[in-house]
């Protein structure tokens, strides 16, 4: 090993210098100082030496053209995708320590991570939100590349690998959906994997391979886990390497090619030290911001334990699959869900080979840019149409039950703070009054206790909303004829002092209230000619929900509220 005369030191200092040099050959303390200091480098340029001798610096270019670093051009989106990938990997590793991929334990380990592990809830939040951000950033990166025509020759292959990475990102995000083993996980993946079943020929085989059986169960959980933590990340790392290697080979497409009268600049930004410190600053600021958002403004939800026997009312795919949901509503599952979606993905993959126009100028790409904008608008509209709120025939009684007293999750009643819901038995009735041709409030007030005037304004507002909603659904759902809706609130359980060995029989305030929504309406149906016919029978539907005093703790609250 070459030893520079500068450091013929003995002892620990000398040993450290030797070790340091074995990582970065012939880089002593002086060379490092020269490397990381601003201003022109001395000759021979020590920055060059780091780039050629160290793997970690070798994978970055020695210098970037000033055009490529302009913030308004690439916006660092590709870099940011990688940032999120690393963030997901780090938080994912932390979560893996505590998580166990078996249906009996998965949910329990999730609650353990959220309750008992120091910073565990934060790690989960970051991992969940980071996944959404990563998908968003990757999509934005693709859009930027499209609109600046960076996919054109000689960079077709970069676009192609980028599309694979987009696909990987979606799969990574989706495969992680199942792991918490809560209701959202279970049903979103049930829908997702049933899409695979719809494919003709190999579809059912793929579905079975993915789930390890006919239904989502222990096999599916293990398979999704392995996909999520091993196979997909490995493939993603490989394709990131290929993608980035190609970017290094071809360099970032120059911005001056987009405009007619813009001159290329010759100025270069050295990677060491300017760019490296800039990136460091961005990493630190982004990390801080992300932790801040995740701790104070956002909470990853954990729903109830997965239950194959209890289907939630509106199961929905993650937001980046809304467009697919929207398309499925347009028509046949196979044609729209697989045919059209397949064609769209295929066209995106092959875009550089379809768009043969060699010019990158906006002036020459009017059609492509306009087409891109139209496609983007269509994408947003179809995604919007994919929301559960559109295009699905709804049953009034169901909708009222789901929005006020859902079996799972938070209902409208739960938005009222627990203490502002009446403490005594309370009945509120809305029914149709034929003489006034309107919905009126019937029984209104508490059986015992405070008068209606003494009710909290928030609670009253909720009652008023219920009246409007009853009216709305009676108009919308023609089979929901003249409903009578009763909302009952009853005290159910009182808090005990303790349930430990030193048990006390003293009760300490209400712990639980039961809210019952009872709906009765005239049954109606269509006859052979398609006319609406009312029958003398009545239909009835009742659902109830318990309000817990400690039920919902909002992020940032020091005191739990309902």
């Amino acid at each position, binding site marked *: 090993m070459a030893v520079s005369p500068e450091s013929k030191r003995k002892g620990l200092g000398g040993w450290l210098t030797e070790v340091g040099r074995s990582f970065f050959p012939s880089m002593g303390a002086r060379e490092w100082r020269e490397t990381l200091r601003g201003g022109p480098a001395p000759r021979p340029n020590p920055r060059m030496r780091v780039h050629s001798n160290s793997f970690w610096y070798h994978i970055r270019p020695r210098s970037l053209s000033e055009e490529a670093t302009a913030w308004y051009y690439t916006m660092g989106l590709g870099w940011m995708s990688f940032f999120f990938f690393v963030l997901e990997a780090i938080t994912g590793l932390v979560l893996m320590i505590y998580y166990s991929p078996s249906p*009996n334990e998965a949910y329990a380990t999730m609650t353990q991570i959220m*309750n008992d592990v*120091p910073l565990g809830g934060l790690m989960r939040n970051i991992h969940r939100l980071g996944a959404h951000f990563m998908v968003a950033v990757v999509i934005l990166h693709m859009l930027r590349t499209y609109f600046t025509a960076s996919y054109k020759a000689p960079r077709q292959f970069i676009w192609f690998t980028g599309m694979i990475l987009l696909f990987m990102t979606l799969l990574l995000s989706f495969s992680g959906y199942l792991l918490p083993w809560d209701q959202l996980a279970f049903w979103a993946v049930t829908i997702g994997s049933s899409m695979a079943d719809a494919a003709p020929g190999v579809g059912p085989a793929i579905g079975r391979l993915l789930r390890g059986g006919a239904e989502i169960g222990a096999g599916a959980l293990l398979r999704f886990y392995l996909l999520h933590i091993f196979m997909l990340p490995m493939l993603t790392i490989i394709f990131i390497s290929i993608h980035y290697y190609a970017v290094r080979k071809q360099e970032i497409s120059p911005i001056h090619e987009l405009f007619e009268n813009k001159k290329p600049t010759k100025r270069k930004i050295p990677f060491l*030290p300017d760019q490296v410190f*800039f990136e460091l*600053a961005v990493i630190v600021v982004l990390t801080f911001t992300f932790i801040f958002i995740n701790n104070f403004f956002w909470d990853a939800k954990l729903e109830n*334990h997965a239950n194959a026997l209890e289907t939630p009312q509106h199961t929905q795919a993650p937001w980046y699959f809304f467009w697919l949901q929207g398309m499925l509503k347009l028509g046949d599952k196979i044609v729209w869900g697989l045919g059209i979606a397949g064609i769209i993905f295929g066209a995106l993959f092959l875009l550089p080979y379809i768009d043969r126009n060699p010019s990158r100028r906006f002036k020459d790409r009017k059609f492509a840019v306009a087409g891109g904008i139209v496609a983007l608008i269509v994408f947003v509209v179809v995604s919007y149409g994919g929301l559960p709120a559109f295009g699905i025939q709804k049953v009034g009684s169901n909708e009222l039950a789901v929005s006020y007293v859902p*079996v799972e999750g938070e209902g409208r009643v739960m938005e009222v703070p627990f203490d502002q819901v009446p403490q005594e038995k309370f009945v509120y009735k809305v029914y149709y009054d034929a003489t006034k041709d309107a919905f009126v409030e019937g029984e209104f007030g508490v059986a015992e206790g405070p008068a209606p005037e003494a009710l909290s304004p928030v609670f009253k507002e909720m009652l008023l909303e219920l009246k409007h909603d009853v009216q709305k659904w009676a108009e919308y759902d023609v089979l929901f004829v003249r409903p009578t809706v009763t909302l009952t609130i009853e005290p159910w359980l009182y808090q005990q002092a303790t349930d430990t060995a030193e048990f006390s029989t003293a009760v300490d305030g209400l*712990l639980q209230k039961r809210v019952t929504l009872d709906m009765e309406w005239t049954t109606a149906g269509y006859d052979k000619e398609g006319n609406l016919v009312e029958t003398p029978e009545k239909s009835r539907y009742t659902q109830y929900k318990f309000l817990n005093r400690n*039920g919902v703790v909002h992020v940032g609250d020091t005191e739990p509220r309902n």
Partner: protein
Amino acid sequence: MTKNIAVSLLFTLATVALLGFIWIGQTNQRLAATELRQNALQLEFGQRNYEQYCATCHGLAGEGQGPGNKGAPKLSDLQGRLGPGTEAFTRENGIQKKYGSLRNYVEGIIAYGKTGTAMPAWKLQGMRDDQIKAIAAYVMSMQGGAISPVALDSAKSWAATTEAGLPPTATPNEPPLDNPVAEAGKQTFNTYCISCHNKTDASGVGPGLAGLFGETGTKAFGTTLPNGNPVNDENVLDWITNGGGGPGVGPDPQDGASYGAMPPQGQILSEDKILEVIAYLKTLTR
């Protein structure tokens, strides 16, 4: 560049400070708040499971003597009957010695049942640990007069309507059978089988078993078992010992439910016991 270094240093410090703040805040408030919420979720989950699995016998509000089994004990006074300070808790080999706490005892009874009573071993029926824990948490929350009078009233009216809708089921109070073997089988049936199988035509989790050995067979499957074998002593013994499940078990022609899920009982019941149950099944007529 100097600016970037300064920003990096500043935000590194800020991040460390923020993480420290979160860490300390978590142990004091955030974790406590999350735990409260999880406890409430558990209580709600326990309640749903209680209504599904336990309320039929123990009553909606734990008042006991529910519509499904008039012999089921009251649960809302467990603390007074079995809790700390009572004889059952403190005696030699009592609850304290064997289980440590009343909650553990409740969990144990839900999981492994109580021999000699109709209380089934739910864990062996496929109930998960988190369900058992949640139900126990709910049962514990009932103790000490915590249930409101309104809830008790509503539980009573629920029991009345449920009872009116339920098919008549034999209770442990029915007169003993003449045949001592069949009588012993009845006890076993009431302990291990009745949570899924009715003694009438009505389907529960499994098919009703009235008339199994009769000329017309059961309502659901007639004179064959779900696996296609004819009903006789040998085949029924095999079915109970080894259970159903697996391919070839078709849906019930009556209501479309699949009855392939009969769990094997060979590990729980000896062959003698099963033969006694078969002797008892022969007494059930349609």
